[in-house]
């Protein structure tokens, strides 16, 4: 039966042409190979979110009057609803974490260098989209913390020079965070962002497959000096099976977190209540939030918050163009990028810890 189906497909799709390159494809083996799995794990967590997100959609109702209750219903009445929602939330956070780790591993292994510049750019765009997923999804349960964090977050967007206010009104669906904001964020979260992300993931994967895995410069120079030193493994099945192992481990960690620390729901948002103490964004926005809080009200002649937003905006844009500053033969640019990577990672970790420690 299976053989007949295989023959039927082979008659029509020239199976060998499609599978052939994958069978020939190899992955370099060296002492830093395990960093390659971070991208795969990020993809796995994204797929989990797609699956659990679709399940949540069966019961979730967007709207200021029913969003909280519907999530509460999912968590208390729907069979395994608590598990689906907890896995969705935990997977989102772990995905952002692995995406950041993947990005910094690419920086420090210099995997972004020619000819993989566009792979880097597509990856950076995916990271921004993932953060957009986090920001929009955070509001959907319509609880107090998310409501006020969204209020603060969109206020920060409103500080962007020239287009800030219009952008804030567009995000909020009005001047204030209301049910209209929730509907918009829901639309972004389940339609706009998934569409863009799917497209970019396909481009990113196609580029990874096309260029193959990068080899760190140190290893590459040794391999160039001695061809016998170069070691490779087959992409299929050797690397794919290893990837599955990594995915299984990620699934175990995800399941344990979801079962032992189910994602909290909090209390329903009350737009007329005063903002409670301790309003803070999701952890991956904390370093920016804490920095904006600590910038003086006035920097030279400009509003401190505006300066902070501009600096983050410019830094993010330059970071996306990072491979173009590390062209072959420019040792200075390479050192600058390594230094910037260390500073950026230290800054993000330090400001995140500071944000959680500060009252």
């Amino acid at each position, binding site marked *: 039966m299976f053989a007949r189906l295989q023959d039927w497909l082979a008659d029509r799709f020239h199976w060998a042409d499609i599978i052939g390159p994958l069978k020939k494809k*190899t992955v370099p083996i060296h002492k830093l190979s395990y960093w390659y799995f971070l991208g795969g794990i990020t993809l796995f967590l994204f797929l989990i979110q797609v699956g659990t997100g679709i399940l949540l959609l069966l019961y979730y109702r967007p709207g200021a009057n029913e969003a909280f209750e519907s999530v*509460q219903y999912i*968590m*208390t009445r729907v069979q395994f609803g*608590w*598990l689906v929602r907890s896995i969705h939330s935990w997977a989102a956070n772990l995905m952002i974490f692995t995406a950041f780790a993947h990005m910094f591993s690419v920086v420090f292994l210099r995997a972004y260098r020619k000819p993989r510049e566009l792979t880097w750019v597509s990856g950076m765009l995916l990271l921004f989209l993932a953060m957009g997923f986090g920001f929009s999804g955070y509001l959907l349960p319509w609880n107090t913390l998310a409501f006020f964090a969204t209020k603060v977050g969109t206020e920060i967007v409103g500080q962007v020079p020239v287009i800030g206010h219009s952008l804030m009104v567009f995000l909020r669906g009005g001047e204030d965070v209301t049910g209209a904001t929730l509907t918009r964020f829901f639309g972004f979260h389940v339609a706009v962002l998934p569409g863009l992300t799917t497209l970019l993931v396909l481009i990113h994967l196609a580029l990874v497959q096309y260029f193959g895995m990068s080899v760190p410069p140190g290893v590459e120079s040794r391999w160039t000096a001695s061809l016998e030193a170069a*070691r*490779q*493994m*087959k992409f299929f*099945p*050797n690397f794919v*099976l*290893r990837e*599955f*192992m990594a995915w*299984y*481990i990620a*699934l*175990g960690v995800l*399941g*344990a977190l979801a*079962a*032992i*620390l*189910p*994602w*909290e*729901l909090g*209390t329903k948002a009350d737009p007329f209540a005063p903002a409670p103490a301790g309003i803070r964004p999701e952890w991956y926005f904390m370093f920016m939030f804490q920095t904006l809080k600590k910038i003086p009200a006035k920097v030279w002649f400009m509003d401190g918050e505006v300066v902070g937003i501009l600096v983050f905006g410019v830094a993010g844009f330059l970071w996306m163009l990072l491979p173009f500053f590390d062209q072959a033969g420019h040792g200075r640019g390479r050192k600058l990028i390594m230094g910037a990577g260390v500073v950026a990672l230290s800054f993000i970790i330090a400001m995140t810890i500071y944000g959680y420690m500060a009252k």
Partner: protein
Amino acid sequence: MDTWRNNRHRRALFQLLVVSACSSTAFAQAQNTCLDCHGALDPPLQVTEQQFTSDIHSQKGLTCASCHGGDPTKADPDAMSKTAGFRGKIERSQIPALCGSCHSDAAFMRKYNPSLRTDQLSQYKTSVHGKLFAKGDTKVAVCIDCHGVHGLRAASDTRSKVHPLNVAQTCSRCHADASYMKGYSIRTDQFAQYSGSVHHDALVVRSDLSAPTCTTCHGNHGAAPPGVDSVQNVCSKCHVFQDQMFEKSSHKVAFQSAGLPGCVVCHGNHGISHPTDAKLGTGPQATCMQCHTPGDSCDQARAEMLTSLTRLDGAINNAHNLLGVAESSGMEVSQARLDEDQARDALTKARVTIHSFRKELVDHDIQEGLQIASKTLQAGQNALAERDYRRKGLGLALVFILMSVVGLFLYIRQLERDAPKV
């Protein structure tokens, strides 16, 4: 004050110079010449521009001349001449009548605030302050002592001395001053007692403006201590259900015949503390045993009611603690928390019903509360059972995942052992 006396000649000269200067410059401005001079004078003659503009009367268009006479559009000495109707400083004995000349005139007041009452003066005359004032005692409070003068604000303004948040402080300026109150034969610890009371806590600490301050029980313009017969009526303005229960109780008749002033017999007056179940006990806070004899039928009923309240309180606390454990395990128990609130409401209702002093009525509320508390406890137990079920499921899943990882690892090893490396 001494410094003022020592320097008064110098100050008088300075004031004369100020007044002379004003007479030549302020005239040209033709506005409020009073302020031109009095803004520059020292207290008590000083009235600053800020005081004047923040005053509710000035905001409504009245001027200095409305009370003091004179003509503020003219320069001194014409502004303060008898021909301009200048009255100068208002004698303390004239203040209630002067204020009343407008505030008791309904037709006049309608132009400014039609909803404002116009019986303040007539009420004042019925108050302890007003009665003593009528007898010639000018030490007692008159309008300006409570409301202020020059810079007087509407009572709804939180900066007003008669805003509910500030009333007790305002009354205490005289009533907590033992030397000032000497000769009036009343205590001066009311403010100290009130400051430690549940009412002060609600009003000042929690900013609950519905909580009582001095004037809520004593009245404001007609301030007087509530009589023995009125106490229950005063408290029942807020504590409606307690009043209804007490009204039908055996204590109502007993207190009346003994000439006891209702609520304050058990709860006190200015220093009312948060009532606890210990009031029904036999310890230091107990009130029943101040009158009742140990072992009598009332004492038995008291003990039984206390046992019921303690039982319900304990049941709610057990459920509360169990829900806390479930919550800290990440379980969603918000519905059970709502039920817990209902159980607490039943306990509060039972505590109110205590004022009927009828055990069967109290037991009815207690039973209702116990049923809800039991349901809440069950919800907590279910949540913990669900938590354990999840953890077992997780354990099984992790075993399956571990086996799969080990299986994959062994398979890869075998695959790579059999096939040569690329």
